[in-house]
Structure formats: structure tokens, C-alpha cells
């Protein structure tokens, strides 16, 4: 059963670990075509939010809805619509690029013979397909991991620091790719602390600090300055 949705919504979501509040009462929504930037300093809770959206972390309160259903109601099929690129990359270094993609393609029930070459092409790694991932540079692994997370054409694409280790050309390729998939109807949520890259890419920005959402507004001119004001200035008590 294919579970598809137009919108993902966090309603008053909190997550704490003992006495440490990772995320406090965050309410956010994103729809098809959005490229939402989750911005904030390190330790703000961006990765936890990504984990919550990916169904890997359970919220201690509040709800997360994909369309009109929660993850629990939708069952394992909801994960067919979610793609995640985390900073751990989730690749097996002992296997080749092709073997990694092949495994994940089959795991997602795709036709590996069609999907894998296409993904290798997109990653620009077609000529290194049969080399072990352990021999790849960080940038190459990043590109491979990105293609892995997009292979099954998920509705919701979650990216946690996707630009780490990429050179200029690769950054351009990745941002173009993300724009294209958003234009094709995906919901893209990017967590990053790289403001320059976010500036050119995101359609909306959500600023997180100390686990709280302190701004949720369209991006546009002066993103960097607005961000700085919010994070260092009086953004303490305000909630979006």
C-alpha cells in the first residue's frame, strides 16, 4: 500500500532525554514544493527534529502527521515516502558503491537493475562504481549517500548537513538536484548551519535555538542578517 501525503506537520512536539530538553514544543509544517531550511547553532536540536521526522525518534509529547496520519497509524509503509541523508551517511565501507546502492534498492523494493545505474550517474560516480566506499573521499561518499536516499523517490526528503565536504561544483550539483526534486513535488527539509548555502536554496527558514523554534518565515533578502539577529539577539522568549 503506497502511503502518500502532501504535507508534513509537527504539532507542539517535544522530546527530552531525562532532564535535557532536546526539542521544546515545536510546531512546523511543510508542503510539496517547499525547501524548508532548519537553521540554528550546533546543539540547537536540528538533528533531533530530523530524527523525529524520520520516525527514528519518538516524541515525548505532541504529534507528527504525514498528511492526516501519524507514523504509527500509517505503519511501515510511511517509510517508503521518507528519505534521509544524515551526517553519519549510512554506507557500508566494506562494500563497493554499486553494492551499497544495490542493497538499499532491493531493501526498498526497487528494480535494482534500473535504479542503481541511474543513481550512480546522478552521483557522478559511474566510473568508480566498483570501488570500495572506504576508498572514497568524504565528498564522494556524501554524493553517494545523497543518491541512496533519493533512489526510492521519497515524498519527504530530510537532509542533515548535506553540504559537508563538498567542493563548489558538487554543491552546485546538489542544490540543483534539490531544487528539481522540490519542483517535482517533494517536501525538502534541510538542516544546516551553512547560511550562505541555505540562502541560495531554501524557500522558507525555520530558526531553532536551544530546542525552541524562534522563527518561521519565508527566506529572501537578508537571510543572514535576520538569522544573526534572531540567534544572538532577543529571540529568547519569542516563539513562532
Amino acid at each position: 500500500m503506497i502511503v502518500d501525503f502532501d504535507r508534513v506537520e509537527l504539532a507542539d512536539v517535544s522530546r527530552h532525554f531525562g532532564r535535557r530538553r532536546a526539542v521544546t514544543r515545536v510546531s512546523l509544517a511543510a508542503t510539496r514544493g517547499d525547501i524548508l531550511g532548519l537553521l540554528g547553532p550546533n546543539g540547537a536540536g536540528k538533528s533531533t527534529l530530523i530524527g523525529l521526522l524520520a520516525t527514528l525518534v519518538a516524541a515525548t509529547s505532541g504529534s507528527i502527521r504525514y498528511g492526516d496520519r501519524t507514523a504509527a497509524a500509517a505503519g511501515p509503509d510511511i517509510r517508503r515516502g521518507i528519505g534521509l541523508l544524515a551526517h553519519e551517511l549510512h554506507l557500508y565501507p566494506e562494500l563497493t558503491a554499486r553494492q551499497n546502492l544495490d542493497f538499499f534498492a532491493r531493501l526498498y523494493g526497487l528494480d535494482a537493475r534500473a535504479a542503481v545505474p541511474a543513481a550512480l550517474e546522478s552521483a557522478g560516480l559511474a566510473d568508480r562504481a566498483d570501488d570500495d566506499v572506504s576508498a572514497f573521499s568524504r565528498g564522494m561518499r556524501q554524493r553517494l549517500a545523497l543518491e541512496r536516499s533519493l533512489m526510492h523517490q521519497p515524498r519527504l526528503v530530510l537532509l542533515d548537513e548535506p553540504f559537508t565536504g563538498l567542493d563548489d561544483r558538487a554543491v552546485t550539483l546538489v542544490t540543483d538536484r534539490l531544487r528539481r526534486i522540490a519542483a517535482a513535488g517533494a517536501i525538502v527539509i534541510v538542516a544546516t548551519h551553512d547560511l550562505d548555502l541555505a540562502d541560495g536554496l531554501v524557500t522558507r527558514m525555520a530558526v531553532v535555538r536551544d530546542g525552541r523554534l524562534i522563527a518561521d518565515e519565508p527566506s529572501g533578502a537578508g537571510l543572514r542578517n535576520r538569522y544573526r539577529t534572531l540567534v544572538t539577539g532577543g529571540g529568547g522568549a519569542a516563539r513562532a
Partner: protein
Amino acid sequence: MRKLFLPLTIVTAALFAYAPIAIANAPYESTMLLIQKIFYFHVPAWIAMYSALFVCGIASAIYLFKGRVEADRVAVAAGEIAVLFGLIGLVTGPLWGRKAWGVWWQWDARLTTALLLELILIAYLMVRKYGGPGSEKLAAGVALFGMVDSVFVYKSVDWWRTVHPKTSVVTSLGETAPAMMPAFALCAVAFVLLMTLLLMLRVKLAQQQATLNDMYLADEE
């Protein structure tokens, strides 16, 4: 539950106060005489430990599948109390054995099972303490497995000891003659009540800790 606390305490205290009298009045067991009387505390300690183990296991299952935090508090309380009563049993057992048969330990089936279960319970507490964040869930898994496993441990240790009866000192501790039943029943009830009281106290403590945590979190909001 709170309202029951005081009456239960009074009843338990009364039972324990009367227990020495009941024990003294109970008949001597034929071979072991006086030392056998340790049985009136030794076996009820086991009963309390097993009850606590099952409470821990079931509460852990509820916590794991339903996510109810109150269940986790009951589980940790029951786990600690089970270790406590297990310790009483594991100390009184060898004391009895030493006096009755001259050896501290000879792999009696029930004592061995109890030792293994005690290890599982201690492992449960260690996971909670040293497992890092989110270890309550992991510990709940251990408790659930431990509870189910206790049946297997008991049967396999029992068969391990009795299927090839060795010519050794003794077979098992504690056959109960009918005349001993009143004193035994009294002590058993007293111990189970004591376990319940301690459980209530410990759960209250856990609740207060949780309230404190919530207040910290609310303060930050």
C-alpha cells in the same frame, strides 16, 4: 493507594512482631532441629523476590509496549526490591546449609536458580545505571526477558540437579510438614506485605523524582 499505606504498615508490623512467637511454637523438624527454623524467613524471602520479579517483568512489558512511564517507575522499584529480598534469601540459604549439612554451597537447585535470577536482576539495575540515555527501555527488555527466562532457568537447573541424582549431602531445602503451615503462612504473608510496602515507598520516591524533573523542564520553558 496512599490510604492503604498506614493500615498495611500496622498489619505488617504486627505480623512481624508475632512471627518469632509463631516460629518458636512451631514443631521442630526431625533432622535439623533448631536451625531449620531459618526456613520461616528464608522461603518467604524467595516468595517476595519472585513476586517482585514478576511485578518488574510485567511492568516492564507495559512500559515497553504502552509507553506508560508510571509502569517504568514500578518496574525499577520492583527490580530493586527483588534484589534486596534475593540477597536475604542468598545469605540465609548458605547459613542454613552450613549449619545443617556442613557446606556453604552445594548447588541446590533452588538456591542456584535464585542466584541466577539475582544476577539477571542486578544486570537489569546495571543497564539502568550504566546504559546511557534511553536505558530505561533497554532495561525493560532485560526485565521482560528475565521474567520469561526464570521459568526456563528453574526447570533446567532443577533437571540438571535431579535427573542424575548424585550421592551428595542433601536434595533440597524445606519440606513443609502440616503443623508448620500456620507459622509459615504467617511469615509468607508478612514478607509479601513488607515487599508491597517497600514497593509503594519506592514508587513514591520515583514519582517525586519525576515530578522534580518535570519542574526543571517546565522552568526552562
